[in-house]
């Protein structure tokens, strides 16, 4: 089809609603948010906006000099979310792949199992993270009970406060996240023609060789999309931390979303909250640029 005036008009009509929603909710606020980071805006002058003082880079500078320690907490929260992603994404992918390979075989009851593994994906976040918060409780929770029954711990561990908090959230997130990946990988596995495996088998390829040279290359396009999305979405992580650990920004497992939320809507410093949000955007854009660039390099070879 060619670009015609009629097409342009039809397209404008068709994408109009989506375009408007995107402008109103995403693009304008993001651009405006960058402006906010340079304004001295807090609860006292919110109602007078846009008559608020322009403060230049003060919001950024204040993060590290105002004595409340919010800047360093923000920096460590970025570190936390990176560690969280570095563990959660590979762990989730490997489990998802293993289960997808398992369920790719025919066995009685396969459809039931396939339906069951979808449960974590479809159960609401708030529900499952609250349940995990319940079973991670120190004395009344069942995780410690299990570990002690297995002889792995002597004293009850405190999971949700202090050093173990990040680990507890990671366990819950991997549990909640792998079924979706697994479903996608399973669908991809089922598109691989059986002849490829038969040929590999005739050539005497071992199980590992078939996995390495047939299965993985065939599901690589889907895997790549899923992994890229996970890396990007990793910075969106909020629910699991907010539900399991609360809005405590001094927690060793605080993430940027929680720290910024508290700074803006707890301490009511909208300006410095925006400054942190802008810093976070810069980091995400830099990571994305690196990812896109390295992909170009590789495909150019």
């Amino acid at each position, binding site marked *: 089809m060619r*670009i015609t005036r009629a*097409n342009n008009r039809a397209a404008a009509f068709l994408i109009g609603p989506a375009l408007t929603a995107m402008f109103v909710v995403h693009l304008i606020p993001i651009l405006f948010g960058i402006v906010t980071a340079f304004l001295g805006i807090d609860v006292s002058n919110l109602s007078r906006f846009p008559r608020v003082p322009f403060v230049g880079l003060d919001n950024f500078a204040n993060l590290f000099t105002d004595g409340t320690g919010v800047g360093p907490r923000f920096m460590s929260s970025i570190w936390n979310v990176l560690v969280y992603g570095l563990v959660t994404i590979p762990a989730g992918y490997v489990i998802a792949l293993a289960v997808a390979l398992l369920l790719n075989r025919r066995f009685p009851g396969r459809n039931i199992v396939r339906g069951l593994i979808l449960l974590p994906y479809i159960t609401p976040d708030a529900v499952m993270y609250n*349940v995990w918060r319940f079973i991670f409780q120190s004395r009344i929770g069942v995780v410690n009970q299990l570990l002690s029954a297995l002889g792995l711990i002597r004293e009850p561990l405190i999971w949700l406060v202090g050093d173990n908090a990040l680990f507890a959230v990671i366990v819950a997130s991997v549990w909640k996240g792998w079924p979706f990946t697994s479903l996608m990988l399973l*669908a991809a596995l089922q598109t691989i023609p059986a002849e490829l495996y038969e040929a590999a088998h005739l050539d005497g390829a071992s199980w590992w060789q078939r996995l390495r040279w047939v299965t993985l290359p065939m599901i690589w396009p*889907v895997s790549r999309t899923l992994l890229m999305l996970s890396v990007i979405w990793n910075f969106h992580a909020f629910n699991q931390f907010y539900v399991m650990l609360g809005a405590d920004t001094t927690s060793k497992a605080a993430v940027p979303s929680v720290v910024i939320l508290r700074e803006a809507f707890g301490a009511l410093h909208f300006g410095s*909250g925006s400054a942190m949000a802008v810093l976070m955007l810069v980091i995400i854009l830099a990571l994305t640029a690196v990812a896109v660039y390295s992909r170009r390099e590789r495909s150019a070879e």
Partner: protein
Amino acid sequence: MKRRTHRAPGDLSPAGKILFALAVCLVVATVLFPYLWMVSGSFKRTIEIQSADYTKEGMEPTLIPRQPTLENYAKINKTVPMLDYLKNSLIISGGTMVFAILISLFAAYALSRLDFRGRKLYELTVYSTQMFPGIAFLIPYFVLFNLVTRITGIPMRDTYWGMIITYTSFALPFCILMMKGYLDTIPKSLDEQALVDGCGRAGIVFRIILPVVKPGAISVGIFAFIMAWNEMLFASVLTGGDTKTVSLGLMEYITTNQARWGGMMAACIVVSIPVLVLFTTLQKHIIEGLTKGAVKE
């Protein structure tokens, strides 16, 4: 090695079969484990949960409640007005679902079928909005909400439609992506014929496309519904007494003074029901719709 050649590539030895069965059981057990404790907790009295202590003989938390009770369900709307939150969530998520399906269907149709100026740019923008974490625009969004209300007098915060607009546009990028993947699998001849027959674009979308993309539309709808049901970051700032959703409501069971785990577990089950019912009745369509868009590229 010799015996192996008798088997087709997919066949397992007896030992392999046992290992395979064990692995499947392990997967099922891991998935079900938290659900068992959720159900069990919902039938326990608060005192039984609170006094449990696995280090003390006879006090360990047990899967079967020692004194089963239905009081957590009977009091579902008492301590925390959970049914009111449920109503709020149903309205907000349902509205989001309807708008997301319609808007993404239009946009995906344009992307899949029409060549228009700015098409590439538009597609790129749609996908790149996915990158921005909510927290990056929550603050300005909140300030703009306040500004709009002050200038026009229209309330924005703590209204159903304010939340529906917000969530619809959160869901849109992924919905458009999924819907376009689905539309691309439908032969163009179908709607070109209708165009020749003098059917308008809107008529094509509603009368020709909508019936055939039903599985895609259903999975897009469910995605939008679940997204709105789950969202907590914007809800924690933009909802209030009139629109608080179940996800935030669940947090009210645990206060600094009291931990009502039993009540919370019962509420967890109740607020999962709409999503689970929706999903299981439409499961076939969803899996087809979800995977068709993603796998095909």
